[in-house]
């Protein structure tokens, strides 16, 4: 039986009727065509589906859409359209921190959450923050470079990462 839910997604009030088994990721992708939230493992290991739930990154594949009712969700589309991660995106581009791009949206979620929480992370802290994000093609070094460079730029230090 479908359940009515209301939630805020990227600032918009959304009302949907969903089956309880529908994950937040499937709600975003299938019902709302917000396909920037990717599905990889669908068991909380790969991090491709990360979204902000009430401001903290969570796996959209492990949150039931019904659980998100009454809460605020921000997807990669929201962060992108509000321009909040423009600098991160540019540094990912500059550093070749992606190849196929499948993991990138989740990486950006983790990176944005990290930088809001800790504006000057060390490289080990960046790696810890990314420990739940799999990348299967470019490797992690360039991604750490891009996040480190963004941190330095945001905190007013030289734009180039060491």
């Amino acid at each position, binding site marked *: *039986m479908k*359940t009515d839910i209301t939630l805020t997604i990227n600032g918009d009030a959304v009302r949907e009727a969903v*089956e*309880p*088994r529908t*994950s937040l990721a*499937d709600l975003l992708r299938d019902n709302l065509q917000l396909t920037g939230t990717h599905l990889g493992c*669908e*068991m*909380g290991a790969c*991090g491709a589906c*990360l979204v902000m*739930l009430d401001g*903290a*990154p*969570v*796996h959209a*594949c*492990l*949150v*039931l859409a*019904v*659980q998100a*009712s009454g809460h605020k969700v921000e997807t990669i589309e929201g962060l992108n359209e509000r321009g909040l991660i423009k600098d991160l995106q540019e540094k990912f581009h500059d550093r070749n921190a992606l190849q196929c791009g499948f993991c990138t949206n989740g990486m950006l979620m*983790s990176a944005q*959450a*990290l930088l809001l929480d800790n504006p000057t992370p060390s490289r080990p802290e960046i790696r*810890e*923050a990314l*420990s*739940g*994000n799999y990348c299967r093609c470019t490797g992690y070094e360039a991604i750490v470079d891009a996040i480190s460079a963004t941190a330095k730029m945001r905190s007013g230090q030289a734009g180039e990462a060491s």
Partner: protein
Amino acid sequence: MKSPAFEYIRAESVAGAMSAYAAAGDDVVYLAGGHSVVPSLALRLQAPALMIDLSEIAALSGISFQDGWLRIGAMTRHVQAINDPLIAAQAPLFAAAAPFVAHPAIRNRGTLGGSLAHADPASEFPAAAVAMRVELEIASPKGTRRVPADEFFLDIYETAIEPGEILLAIHVPSPVAGQVIGFDEIVRRQGDYAMVGAAVQAVAKDGVLEDISIALFSVGNRPTRAVAAQAALMGRVIDDASIADAKAALGDDLDPPDDLQFPATMRLHLARVLLGRILANLEAVA
């Protein structure tokens, strides 16, 4: 993979959740953070008819200090164990264990109560709970009761919580003067399940151990108190000799299984290496 279909109720109170459970029969799963339950559904390891969501019940949240015990609401998220100053001061092994649990996004959602009630023998918080000698407050339709951690974990995924009952809170006794702690694990990749892990709490007076509490995980079907190793350390200073005796005594405490990863002898060896490492670090602060 997708979960099988189920009905869903968002409970507003503990009593409401328990009566919904009673009305539905046994084919029910309580949902806390969902970060163990939802993957198990996706993997089709279980397929309940009804899911009762506990996450919006106010009585399950909150961290407070009462009568020498820290009361941690079952719905407390893993990330709060890292950030909360009361937990850091009064339940330091939870704070020490939390960074080892999975990854940041999992820790934003997973709950302490969910982890303890799930009782995965490879998970960190149950061993920390045993080492800290916490008491688990469980609600049943007949009233609430408190169960010591040593009696709470019964078997793999099995606890003293009876069907339909709800874990309300974790009660942690206040640290005493001279208390030191150690927590570590041996793992192939950060955030994965440990090959072996241990939580240690000790009280040292003038360098001599008056009390020591050791729990290991990923060594059997539940978090395992190392009774013989504790006895080997009692009344002694932490030094090479006492550490060697404790490591030797672990052979009486553990009977790990052979598994697909490696043989039992290797797991016992790793447990001894890890305990020795933690005790050597304790020596520096005791």
